[in-house]
């Protein structure tokens, strides 16, 4: 097992930081170290750094012989082969387009076409979706079982081609405010620099369980690349349903989550306390813990041992991003002995912009900017500059130009920077950011609702983390059934939770736009 300081020293010696060199450093010094674990019981598999690297290079070589500078879409549940496909596509000098598996096939097809994909890599679970996407023959396909056969032949494969690390290597779709998802173009330099510097800024101290969907840059940057760099094994959880059990079985030291996870764990702890009649004991414990901590005595892990056991027993650090996290949750977890490192990110910045560090966490702040980024505010808007900032939006030079005006990426988030710490206060534009980290365009939902005949006017907003549609209908008609039908076509996170009816039209601006 490599010492942390040795691994950090090797990583600091990298000449040019790119994804391939990040993989190679650990392989060179920790070849037998476990990089990934997946499966259960008899199908449980461990992949060493050497195996992982060889399999990535083997697939990269295969892809490079057939495709160069091609866009390759990737769809599937979290898996080891998903991760191998991601890295192999980039190293092979192609462009990866990770797709959100929860989107309807028609929308996925539109995204694959819009990003000019030539090949689709898919897991067997999504074979039916792959069939829809490949209809018409313009998109070739490669299944993960086929990839499994390709990488099975990996044996120290030679593949020396080096890609230009400033070229686009990935397109990630993100909800824009205009209703149409935007394809964020990131280079190898963008992704590798953000992951590399964030790993140094917040060095993970032990193994982790990966649970966030891999098509999110946050999951990739911290949960995959960051954990790999820090020399740890990552257990790849099969998904949300298995998360609680996986914590107990695999005893992670750190996890990377969105606020919804913390809110759920918090509620579960209190519900259990209520069910067992130990609410009072928990409250008393929290008070004692706070008091003793002020006196420099830390007995939190003993005091809340039962809670820790349910979280695997070793969980100490949780990195949280993707949406606003209430300070109360941070304080609660701190009181029971778990550090929450709250941060701020946006896909356009690969994605981590700032994070609270181990040495100092400032309440209500999303921490200090990554070492490779500068953050300022322009007219109250958070703006970012540096190596992790995207190249632009695919096929949309006009929006790219506006977003990157003056050499700064304009995030659309309002906030301020105080003593080097970033504080977020809200959104400049109308984008709903849910506690699960998903971004939903209010305009997109409004457009869908406007297609319902009876709806004259509609405004969609988020209230208490639920999507609410306020509608004005002709003749006071009810559209509950139509909204339910619409919800069936939408992925769960975009569903409208409540329809609120108005008797009068919405107030308008002088240009007849609805005042939101």
């Amino acid at each position, binding site marked *: 097992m490599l010492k942390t300081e040795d691994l950090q020293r090797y990583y600091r010696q990298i000449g040019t930081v790119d994804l391939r060199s990040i993989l190679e450093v650990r392989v060179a010094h920790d070849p037998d170290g476990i990089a990934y674990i997946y499966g259960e019981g008899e199908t449980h598999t461990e992949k060493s750094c050497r195996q992982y690297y060889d399999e990535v290079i083997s697939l990269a070589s295969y892809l490079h012989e057939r495709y160069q500078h091609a866009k390759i879409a990737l769809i599937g*549940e979290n898996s080891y082969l998903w991760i191998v496909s991601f890295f192999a596509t980039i190293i092979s000098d192609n462009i990866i387009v990770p797709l959100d598996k*929860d989107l309807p096939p028609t929308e996925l097809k539109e995204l694959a076409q819009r990003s000019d994909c030539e090949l689709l890599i898919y897991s067997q*679970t999504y074979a039916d979706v792959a069939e829809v996407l490949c209809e018409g023959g313009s998109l070739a396909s490669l299944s993960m079982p086929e990839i499994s056969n390709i990488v099975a032949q990996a044996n120290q494969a030679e593949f020396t081609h080096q890609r230009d690390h400033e070229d686009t290597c990935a397109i990630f779709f993100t909800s824009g405010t205009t209703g149409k998802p935007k394809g964020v173009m990131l280079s190898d330099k963008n992704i590798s620099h953000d992951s590399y510097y964030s790993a140094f800024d917040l060095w993970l101290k032990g193994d982790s369980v990966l649970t966030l969907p891999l098509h999110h840059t946050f999951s990739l940057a911290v949960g995959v690349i960051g954990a790999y760099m820090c020399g740890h094994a990552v257990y790849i959880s099969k*998904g*949300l*349903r298995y*998360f*609680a059990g996986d914590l107990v079985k695999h005893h992670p030291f750190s996890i990377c989550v969105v606020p*919804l*996870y913390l*809110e*759920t764990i918090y509620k579960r702890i209190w519900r259990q306390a209520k069910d067992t009649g130990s609410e009072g004991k928990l409250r008393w414990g929290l008070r004692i813990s706070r008091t003793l901590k002020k006196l420099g005595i830390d007995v939190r892990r003993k005091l809340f041992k039962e809670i820790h056991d349910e979280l695997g027993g070793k969980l100490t650090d949780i990195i949280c991003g993707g949406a606003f996290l209430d300070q109360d949750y941070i304080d609660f977890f701190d009181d029971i002995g778990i550090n929450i490192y709250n941060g701020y990110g946006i896909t356009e910045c690969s994605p981590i912009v700032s994070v609270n560090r181990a040495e100092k966490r400032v309440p209500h702040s999303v921490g200090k900017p990554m070492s490779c980024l500068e953050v300022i505010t322009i007219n109250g808007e958070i703006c970012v500059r540096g190596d992790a900032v995207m190249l632009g939006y695919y096929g949309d030079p006009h929006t790219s130009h506006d977003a990157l005006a003056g050499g700064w990426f304009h995030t659309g988030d309002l906030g301020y920077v105080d003593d080097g710490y970033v504080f977020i206060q809200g959104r400049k534009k109308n984008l709903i950011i849910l*506690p*699960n980290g998903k971004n939903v365009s209010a305009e997109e939902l409004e457009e869908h609702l406007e297609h319902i005949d009876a709806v004259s006017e509609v405004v969609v907003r988020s209230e208490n983390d*639920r999507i609410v549609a306020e509608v004005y209908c002709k003749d006071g008609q009810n559209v509950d059934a139509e909204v*339910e039908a619409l*919800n*069936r076509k939408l*992925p*769960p*996170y975009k*569903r*409208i*939770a*409540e329809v609120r009816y108005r008797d009068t039209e919405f107030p308008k601006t002088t240009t007849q736009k609805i005042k939101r």
Partner: protein
Amino acid sequence: MFESVKGILENYTEYEVREDSSLMGDLALSSFDMAAIVAEFEDKFSISVHDRDIINFVTVKDIINYLEEKTSSSN
């Protein structure tokens, strides 16, 4: 079936559970709640629910229909 489903859902929501209640709207259930609820259905009805089937659950009635179909086909 409704009573069995209701019994499980009531552990996760403070709102009244009706057949036409929407899961995310009326009952304010999160994706995390749904994951735990489905695990309970699997145990209670000795069935296996595919991850992708969960996406199709919009109302309580959808769950009932799904479970009725699953339990009858497994008998």
